[in-house]
């Protein structure tokens, strides 16, 4: 099945080992919608890279418990730990970490705020809400952590999983949004109305501002506004820092040393998200390695179509001695129908994006929760079905 060139309608196969082995590749970002096996793919890629001789670190965002345990990630400690049980014969190694977004945010504040302001910020209720419950923060902090790991320069390769966002594009956009908010006009106006007063049209601005703050006070309550103002006041020493950092990370993602691996399952929603993503990466000049299509169904008997299988099963249904064969053929028919549907969906994607190299990974009948399982996924990632 692997050497049927015409059958793939010109789709290039993604050579995962070539991506992992390329010494100039320093960052691999796994992205895609939720529920497509992104975290597992990231972990399998990292393990494979490590066992092929690269010093690797994998940054996971929200791993399944047993997968996390298999990598020794028993708790959130926000710094990479060595994974045991990895074959290091070729000189590679694997470290793994799970993102703790609040701690990452705290570290940013501690590193960049003036010493006397840092504790004011960390104790502020508005900051606490921002750093724990605002969804965009996770994306921002994932990118922040990626930047930190890259700057540390202790690894040949960083493999990063992306947060389970509403949209796969969120992690590209959220950092810039949060960065420009924290550095932005709204916050400056909140804290320093006097600055606006220096300009022409002082009275107009002042009047507008009066309406504005009274509206905000009315809507948000005075306490919250005071919290925000205190927060922003303390943040003053960091102005410029947030946006600059977000921009630096964005530039890192555009660097040729980075490769994006888009992960999808053969489902309409997942492939639609994958399409958006591929278009966005192309538009922003971000290097795409290819598409990993997970959970693809396969058959041992592709020669018997769903229709033939159902016809035979119906024919056999009348004879009790063929009950088992009839049931087996019905199972086969259902499998072939699923395969047909998945093939149509995948073909639609590759027609729209013919240049995207793709690897299909079969659906496993059980979940992955140990290093051996990850090795199997790694093998499957390099053996298109």
């Amino acid at each position, binding site marked *: 099945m692997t050497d049927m060139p015409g059958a793939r309608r010109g789709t290039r196969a993604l050579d995962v080992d070539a991506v992992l082995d390329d010494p100039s590749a320093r960052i691999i970002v796994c992205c895609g919608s*939720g*529920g*497509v096996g992104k975290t597992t793919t990231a972990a399998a890629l990292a393990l494979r890279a490590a066992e092929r001789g690269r010093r690797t670190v994998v940054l996971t965002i929200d791993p*399944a*418990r047993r997968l996390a345990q298999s990598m020794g990630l028993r708790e959130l400690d926000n710094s990479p730990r060595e994974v045991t049980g990895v074959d290091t014969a070729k000189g590679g190694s694997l470290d793994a970490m799970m993102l703790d977004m609040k701690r990452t945010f705290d570290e940013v504040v501690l590193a960049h705020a003036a010493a006397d302001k840092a504790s004011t910020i960390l104790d502020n*209720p508005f900051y606490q809400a*921002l750093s724990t*419950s*605002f*969804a*965009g923060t996770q994306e921002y902090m994932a990118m922040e952590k990626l930047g930190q790991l890259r700057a540390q320069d202790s690894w040949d390769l960083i493999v990063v999983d992306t947060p*389970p966002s*509403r*949209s796969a594009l969120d992690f590209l956009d959220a950092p810039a*949004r*949060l960065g420009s*908010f924290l550095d932005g*006009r*709204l916050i400056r*106006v909140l804290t320093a109305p006097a600055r606006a007063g220096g300009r022409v049209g002082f009275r107009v601005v002042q009047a*507008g501002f009066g*309406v*504005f703050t*009274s*509206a*905000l006070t*009315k*809507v*948000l*309550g005075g*306490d919250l506004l005071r919290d925000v103002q205190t927060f922003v006041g303390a943040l003053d020493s960091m102005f410029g820092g947030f946006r600059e950092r977000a921009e630096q990370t964005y530039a890192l993602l555009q660097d040729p040393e980075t490769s994006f691996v888009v992960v999808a399952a053969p489902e309409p*929603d997942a492939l639609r998200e994958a399409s958006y993503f591929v278009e966005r990466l192309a538009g922003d000049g971000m290097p795409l390695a290819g598409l990993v299509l997970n959970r693809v169904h396969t*058959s*041992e*008997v592709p*020669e*018997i179509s769903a229709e033939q299988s159902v*016809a*035979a*099963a119906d*024919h*056999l249904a009348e*004879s009790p*001695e*063929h009950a*088992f*064969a*009839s*049931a*087996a*053929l*019905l*199972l*086969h028919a*259902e499998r072939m*129908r699923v395969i047909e549907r998945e093939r149509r969906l995948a073909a639609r994607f590759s027609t729209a994006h013919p240049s995207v190299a793709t690897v299909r990974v079969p659906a496993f*009948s*059980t*979940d992955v*929760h140990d290093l051996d399982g990850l090795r199997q996924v790694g093998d499957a990632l390099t053996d298109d079905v």
Partner: protein
Amino acid sequence: MLDWNQARLHIVTGKGGTGKTTVAAALALGLAAEGRRVLLVEVEDRQGIAGLFDLPPLPYEERKVAVAAGGGDVYALAVDPQDAVLEYLQMYYRLGRAGRALDRMGALEFATTIAPGLRDVLMTGKTYEATRRRGSGGGFAYDAVVMDAPPTGRVTRFLNVNEEVTELTRVGPIHRQADSIMSLFRSPATAVHVVTVLEEMPVQETVDGVGELRAARLPVGAVIVNQVRQSPLAAATLADARAGSVDTAALRAGLVAGDLADLPHVTDATVHAWADGLAAEVVDHAERVSMEQEQYELLHALDADVLELPRLAEGIDLGSLYTLADRLRQQGVHGFDAAGTR
């Protein structure tokens, strides 16, 4: 166990990829059957409902999208966060000029995109408003409201956002509003349903999610198992297959008796290879059934109603939503009249 059929607000969550939006749509159709009026609310900005009902992207307004069995109506609303904030300001504060000032200052952007926590406040607020809205006759405008909510991993934080608001604001109109929303969400008028498939990660997330919801005192309704496959094989045959024992002679005989051996270029060797291939598929199937059974038991230990929906091999289209709605009704899902004369 909660009698969640008494709920008027049905919140549907589930791990990504489990068919949450499909189930929410089917539930809305099921609740609307026999002349009721149900609103389906989308809060994730994905236009998934429009896709399911074969419609162009929905605007920010309540619009009829389907007629249920026996003549009920399903309306849909895709909540747009920026419009929601303006509407909210108009409704509660009548901030004409100040609303525009907020917009100019970037406050709307702040409220909706930069601080998704506030975005969650608006989404829950809009759903609350639609649930509590009265029609001209004095009854509720909708018999039931179904929300296609964020995934299991985020839903408790999403539904609880108003709790945080009450702590942040302490007093004032926002505080009171947030308080009322939390009261509705924690009352028997609300049920949070968790959609899953019988795979390890979604089930683990369901178990964790149900725990989180209960810890936050949010009423868990049903666990809805989607994409359930019935095995055509007997339990004993499945057990044998798991142990590696499959009757390949019977498969070969079946291939011959079923006329598949008569296809062109099929030799004895082909029939042997096909029978071995089918046997391997049977073993794979048996392993999957066994794994699914384990997951099923974990769900049954949750002390919540477990409903099942079948896997549809060809995928989901508009017609299959009615099939799924029907299956839900067969398992006891029913609407009730809450709306008055309209």
